[in-house]
């Protein structure tokens, strides 16, 4: 079992599988994009590969501005499925009233983990007919949620919610931006507003992960917040190159691309690479786990987890 010097503080009132795993030293989360369907079965079958392997599953909020089954409905469907949700909330489609009312609803449904995001920008050509809302910025929303949780007060409305919902609040970060001059302040602000964990953009570079951990220490955040590094099994060299070109903030080192190109079974090689990254993360005391994403390749995620054997170091009794 890995020891964490100063485990970050999470509210004692939250007792989710995710908080237990984070406190235990190593947590695993995964991400799914809900289906374009009103049929509950279509959603529930997406959960299958993750059951028993991860502590929580993130539910993307109409990613890319394309309508999907909303996280709130998915969270309600996830009850008694043995996997708990991380509800993703974006500021793109809802104003303050709709966001807070959804959070109260999330509380009633039993959601305990929240990831607050700005939301992907809409396509300037194809989706230009739609109003982007952005009534609040992610940091403001984190602040609103903390105030609501701690005091039951809805900001500006002078009214109090009885037994306010309690959330473990998360924020997103881009490890490859940690050299930008504004990075430290921006992340510190989110933590100051009440963020207790971070899930990062996809990272495939061991050195970059170590460097990011150091930078977190430099800005004094190490030990104040749980860090989950975003990574995942790559399906092929082609998909690695596509991600590098098209996904904002994603770097794939050349050596990884080469390894995938030269492998007889690129899918298996991707699983191996992911397992190595997971082991690397597990060895860094100031990191607390991984957030696994593999669009179209979800089935490889449990394989990578099993191969890495990281679950044995954490709280998961696999």
């Amino acid at each position: 079992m890995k020891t964490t010097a100063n485990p970050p503080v999470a509210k004692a009132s939250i007792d989710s599988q995710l908080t237990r795993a984070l406190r235990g030293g190593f947590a695993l989360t995964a991400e799914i994009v809900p289906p374009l369907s009103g049929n509950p079965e279509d959603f529930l079958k997406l959960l299958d590969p993750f059951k028993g392997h991860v502590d929580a599953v993130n539910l993307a909020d109409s990613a890319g501005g394309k309508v999907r089954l909303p996280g709130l409905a998915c969270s309600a469907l996830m009850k008694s499925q043995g996997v708990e949700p991380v509800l993703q909330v974006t500021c793109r489609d809802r104003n303050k009233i709709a966001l807070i009312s959804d959070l109260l609803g999330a509380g009633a449904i039993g959601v305990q983990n929240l990831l607050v995001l700005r939301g992907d920008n809409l396509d300037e050509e194809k989706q230009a007919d739609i109003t982007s809302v952005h009534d609040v910025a992610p940091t403001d929303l984190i602040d609103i949620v903390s105030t609501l949780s701690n005091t039951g007060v809805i900001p500006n409305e002078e009214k109090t919610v009885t037994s306010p919902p309690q959330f473990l609040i998360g924020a997103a970060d881009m490890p490859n931006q940690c050299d930008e001059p504004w990075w430290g302040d921006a992340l510190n602000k989110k933590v100051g507003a009440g963020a207790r964990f971070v899930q990062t953009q996809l990272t495939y570079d061991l050195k970059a992960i170590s460097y990011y951990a150091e930078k977190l220490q430099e800005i004094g955040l190490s030990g104040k917040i749980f860090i989950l590094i975003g990574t995942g099994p790559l399906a092929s060299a082609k998909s690695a190159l596509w991600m590098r070109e098209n996904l904002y903030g994603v770097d794939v080192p050349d050596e990884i691309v080469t390894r995938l190109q030269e492998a007889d079974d690129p899918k298996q090689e991707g699983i191996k690479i992911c397992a190595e990254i997971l082991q690397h993360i597990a060895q860094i005391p100031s990191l607390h786990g991984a957030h696994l994403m593999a669009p179209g390749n979800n089935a490889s995620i449990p394989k990578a987890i099993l191969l890495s054997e990281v679950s044995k170091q954490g709280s998961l009794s696999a």
Partner: protein
Amino acid sequence: MSAANLSKAVGNSSLRAWSNRHARLMEIMYSAFVPVLVALRPLARFIPSKILKPVIKPAEKLIKGTMFDCHMCGNCILSSTGMSCPMNCPKNLRNGPCGGVREGGYCEVTPSMPCVWVKAWEGAQQMRHGDRITLLQPPLDQSLSGRSSWIAVMQADHSTGRGEDTSKTTLTRSKVQKSDRSFSPLQAKLNAGEFTITSEFNPPDTPDADHIRSEAEQLLKLCSSVNITDGAGANTHISSTSVAALLSQAGHDPVMQVSCRDRNRIAIQADVLGASALGIKNILCLTGDGIKSQDKTQAKPVFDLDCTSLLEMLTHMREQGEFLSGRKLDKKPEFFLGATSNPCAIDPHIEVGRIEKKIRAGAQFIQTQYCFDMDAFKDFFTRFQDQGLHEQCHYLVGVGPLSTARAAEWMRHNIAGIKIPDEVITRLKSAKDEAQEGIDICVELIQQLREIKGVAGVHIMALQQPEKVKRIIEQAKLN
């Protein structure tokens, strides 16, 4: 507001009023002007937009800005809105007015401003093609904002801007009102022609699911269905989707209210799809209360859609299995769609036109604002019946108990769109037990409404007072 701004506001709005009063003249001028633009088409083909734009756009902005307070939305529909620019509506309605028009035809959100849409209907009456106001307008295409509609007409190219009068939506329409299909028990009951009672549930501000459920069940055991309000009064309350889901999973058949104030079309489509996955069938579409300057929330009003375009979008999802963008759904959601009405609105003629549009957009049932004025109701409903509209939807009339004469007076002055006759207030004042008198008044109204052919039922609204709902139902012998 500075003096310069003030004079500008006064100056412009009076010119805007003048243009609207002379809508017929504007129509003649415009119909003379369009051929000029069209005649310039060959020229426009050779002149690149780079040169055309700096000349035409400022001219359009100046002329339409002065005459109509034009916002250069690039979606111009002035000829279909009685020469009253709908962009001046604080709720961005493309199909108005809303149900909140104040006494004298003033705006719900900005009480000092005459309602843009009442003016639109008035202007349309003068115009030769005034019936265009009954066209269903699609949601605003935000991408065209700031572009010139004149250049669009000249270039006959709608990718550069929607030219005026291209007021057809891309959606395929199918007539599906009052259908025989029944997706929910509520729909089955209404289809069977039974006098139906619904009520309204304002969920408590708590995420405690058991508490919410037990409060709702007090009402649910009394009536066929309860409406779950969506951020009523521009205040934050628990999400209507989650409460409707809690109730639906407990075996009830709630009506989920969806308003256009707080979410854009992505979020609304996602939420109704989620509602469908959770077993919710009945959806009431509202534009939503406006956010007034004195409201504490400080939230940004979204109004990406209005209730009519929302209805049309949901009908399209159900009938064609497609989102507004044309993307396919793998299963068609089963919705029973409703809309609101204000039978005691200041102008029954506009109200009939407005509801007819909602029915055309897909409203299958209607639940109304509080009705206390039987004469006003009958005046409206006769016109409604004359058009045969009572046969195309299930019309449930909103009623409720007034608690005191003071409360009634407060409502009359503060809730836009509510009409309470003086006799009602006098009756309350002279009663020994004001609360009981309020219930009696409500019961009498229900008994009168029951006699009217085409009234499908009543929607009883009694904020947080289920025991009063119970007494009303017992006294009116509805159970």
